[in-house]
């Protein structure tokens, strides 16, 4: 395969080369037929080895990465979709999905804010989002030349001075192949689970962060600043590597609901922390949750895992999950290094017909490893919410320590809250505590707030915020404020 072949190649393709992109596309066999011109940026729906090769070719990837994708794809074909999660949805037809499309299909994007769903705009206003940004979030096809670009530039300069690499994963494959090759798939192997295998086969983009030895990243990194790579599609791949004694805080997502036409999101995030390094990963996920009756919405099936490879390293996950019709997500820590620390702080909210099955895994391997899990679930309307967590202490993990707390708040009598905490203990010196409670908003608290002249909705929002405080305090400041507002907006109509 010519390494530099692109879809825009003007040369006549060598029809004898079976790996040539155009041949690949022409030889496609399934009934949907091949209608899209090869120069187009969108592949027709369907998935087979040719599609995987076409994605790799389109992205001009080296041979080893194609191999990685193909191995993953072959494994994926032999796997069956996991059904153990406590969520219900109609079966997904993996052959009806288009696995590569341009970052944004401008054709069906709204032309101006007037065309955007007024409900969405109302939400933006409540969250206090500037008009320009509203347009971007709603996916209005505007030329995005405003402040953020200049922010992006100054920001990149500062980072490169510190030696931090922060770019898209496709860029990293070309600019820093040795790093990507060394770490990609080392935390989440290509055959890890059904969705991770699918992602490994067809991932299109995502972020790559590398913090060199001894560097404390001078600012919070956020996908938000990488405007051009914002809409990275449904199969994101993120890789963060923190070398010895480095520190990074990474923010993913955005507090505003994003217009998104994709139904299935299967992302993979891998974190690697070497000796004494610290990675803090914060997520605010607010994809389209579907309407009141559960029509539409995103399926968010994500594999996130951090590997505390070195002694005294630390990985901390903080997530606020308010969006998506279905969330299936377990950010995990492998505590390999002695004295390493894993943390998981989560707020998950399900309203209307949303379903969330989320939690974490803490795998204690090294000596004196510690982990903390704080999970807060809020269920309203017909929402169904499950915490599913695993704490595994291996025989080598002398002196391991875990503290788990998962609380659920129920608003309304049609919703559900469930807890499935797995513990597997193989070392006598381990100390673990698990606590869980489920309750509704206390009538007394509500009554007290009402006697002080606070409206019912505000009172509920106050109480819910108090309930989530232990998690919000882990978020970077601006994010925490937005997350609070977001919760308030998401719970609208839940009471009364």
């Amino acid at each position, binding site marked *: 395969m010519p390494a530099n072949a692109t879809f825009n190649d003007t040369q006549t393709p060598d029809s004898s080369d079976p790996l040539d992109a155009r041949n690949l596309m022409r030889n496609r066999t399934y009934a949907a037929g091949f209608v899209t011109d090869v120069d187009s940026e969108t592949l027709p729906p369907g998935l087979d080895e040719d599609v995987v090769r076409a994605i790799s070719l389109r992205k001009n990837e080296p041979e080893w990465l194609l191999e990685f994708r193909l191995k993953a794809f072959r494994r994926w074909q032999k796997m069956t979709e996991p059904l153990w999660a406590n969520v219900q949805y109609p079966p997904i037809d993996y052959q009806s999905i288009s696995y590569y499309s341009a970052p944004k299909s401008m054709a069906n994007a709204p032309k101006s804010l007037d065309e955007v769903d007024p409900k969405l705009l109302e939400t933006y206003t409540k969250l206090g989002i500037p008009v320009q940004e509203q347009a971007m979030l709603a996916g209005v096809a505007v030329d995005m030349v405003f402040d953020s670009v200049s922010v992006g530039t100054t920001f990149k300069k500062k980072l490169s001075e510190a030696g931090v690499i922060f770019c898209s994963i496709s860029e990293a494959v070309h600019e820093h192949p040795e790093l990507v090759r060394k770490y990609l798939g080392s935390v989440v192997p290509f055959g890890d689970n059904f969705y991770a295998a699918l992602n490994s086969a067809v991932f299109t983009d995502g972020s790559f962060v590398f913090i060199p030895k001894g560097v404390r990243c001078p600012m919070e990194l956020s996908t938000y600043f990488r405007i051009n790579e914002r809409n990275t599609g449904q199969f994101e791949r993120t890789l963060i590597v923190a070398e010895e004694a480095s520190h990074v805080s990474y923010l993913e997502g955005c507090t505003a609901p994003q217009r998104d036409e994709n139904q299935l999101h299967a992302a993979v995030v891998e974190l690697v922390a070497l000796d004494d390094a610290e990675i803090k990963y914060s997520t605010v996920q607010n994809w389209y949750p579907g309407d009141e009756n559960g029509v539409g919405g995103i399926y968010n099936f994500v594999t996130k895992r951090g590997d505390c490879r070195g002694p005294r390293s630390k990985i901390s996950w903080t997530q606020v999950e308010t969006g998506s019709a279905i969330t299936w997500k377990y950010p995990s820590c492998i505590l390999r290094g002695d004295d390493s620390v894993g943390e998981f702080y989560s707020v998950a909210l399900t309203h209307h017909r949303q379903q969330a099955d989320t939690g974490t895994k803490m795998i204690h391997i090294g000596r004196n490893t510690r982990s903390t899990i704080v999970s807060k679930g809020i269920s309203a309307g017909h929402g169904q919410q499950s915490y599913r967590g695993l704490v595994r202490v291996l025989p080598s993990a002398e002196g391991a320590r875990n503290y788990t707390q998962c609380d659920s708040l*129920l608003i309304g009598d049609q919703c559900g809250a469930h807890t499935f905490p797995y513990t597997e203990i193989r070392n006598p010196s381990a*100390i673990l505590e*698990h606590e869980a409670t489920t309750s509704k908003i206390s009538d007394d608290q509500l009554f007290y707030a009402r006697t002080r002249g606070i409206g019912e909705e505000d009172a509920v929002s106050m109480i819910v915020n108090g309930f989530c405080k232990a998690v919000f305090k882990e978020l970077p400041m601006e994010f925490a404020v937005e997350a609070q507002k977001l919760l308030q907006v998401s719970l609208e109509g839940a009471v009364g």
Partner: protein
Amino acid sequence: MLNQDAYTRAFEALLPSLSGSERDTRSAQLQRFFSAGLPNRSIETFKYSDFTALAEGAFALALKAPSPSLDAWTLPDCTQQLLINGHAATPTAALDGPISEPAHAGLAALNAAFATPGLQLQLERNVALEQPLHVLNLSVLDTPAKMIHLRHRIRLEAGASATVVLHDIGLGDAERWITQTLEIDLAANARLQLIRIQDESAATSGWFQATARIQRDASIQLLQFDFGGARIRNDLRLLLQGEGAECGLHGLFAPAGGTHVDNHTVIEHQAPHCVSREFFRGLAWDKAHAVFNGRIVVQPGAQKTDSEQRIANLVIGKGAEINAKPELEIHADDVKCAHGATFGQLDTSALFYLRTRGVPEATALSLLTFSFAADALQRISWPSLREFVTRRFLARMGGDLDAGELL
């Protein structure tokens, strides 16, 4: 592969003792067992317990055996009932009644195809059993590959009350495979204290399923103690079906050697205003493997549910493992549900305190281990049984603690 020939042979040996209609229903159950098979690890509820190792064995039904001396297990002030190798001293007819949804279709069908009636207790309205009923369920086997299947039933009419002890004892070292199902129906205001002591021999694979349906204002206390066996699985399910019903489900599992003990419990709140309490203690010595899965379900409409579940574990052996999962599944909002699980070591400051008082280290460790288990032991309200179980635990633990002094 399931050894269908052997099971078919065992079934043919059973045929002459069956009536015509029973032959048909039981052979249908045997076919159901063949199609469902034995549970393996790919089934979520059997994630840690694999029974497929039993599939290839050529098991035959255990035969009647003469009664050994019962002195070691005879308790004062109670009515004793004896079952040896699944056969009652005076055979009783099986009571009719509902059969609950099984934890595993294959295991339930195997039991239904072969089972003999074990304990069949029915108490009429407002009848109270004056003395506890002590059911000694012995398996006395010297030849390997024998199986015993029992079906028990307890039915208490409105206002009736009883204390029942199901005491499983295994004698002889031969390999055996025992399944038991127990259906319990408690009508309004009935009260039952049921204590099950599982003390099988070290070559026993056992499956025990108890399901209790509890009506309005009735209450049940179920205590489960696991001391023996090789591969043990207990499915205990309490269904609170009437308003104001109460249940307590407590226990102690203390496997040693290479024993595998798996307790799966379900407490289901189907009606409003019910109360449930569940407190388990678990210890694992040597290379033992213990599993505890406690599920609390609150069905839609079961408002004002009050439920609490605590599970405390002590992994003692270097190669031992305990997997615990306290589950909550809640579909109603006005409920009070809490659960907790802990894993820990013995308190080092308590150990230090005892050492400063001149207690040798080994004795101090035994004392603290005993006090950990005592939380479950002291829940037995019948004093002579409490003493018996406590002595059994101390024997299991070893060490030099004097039972007389502790009791």
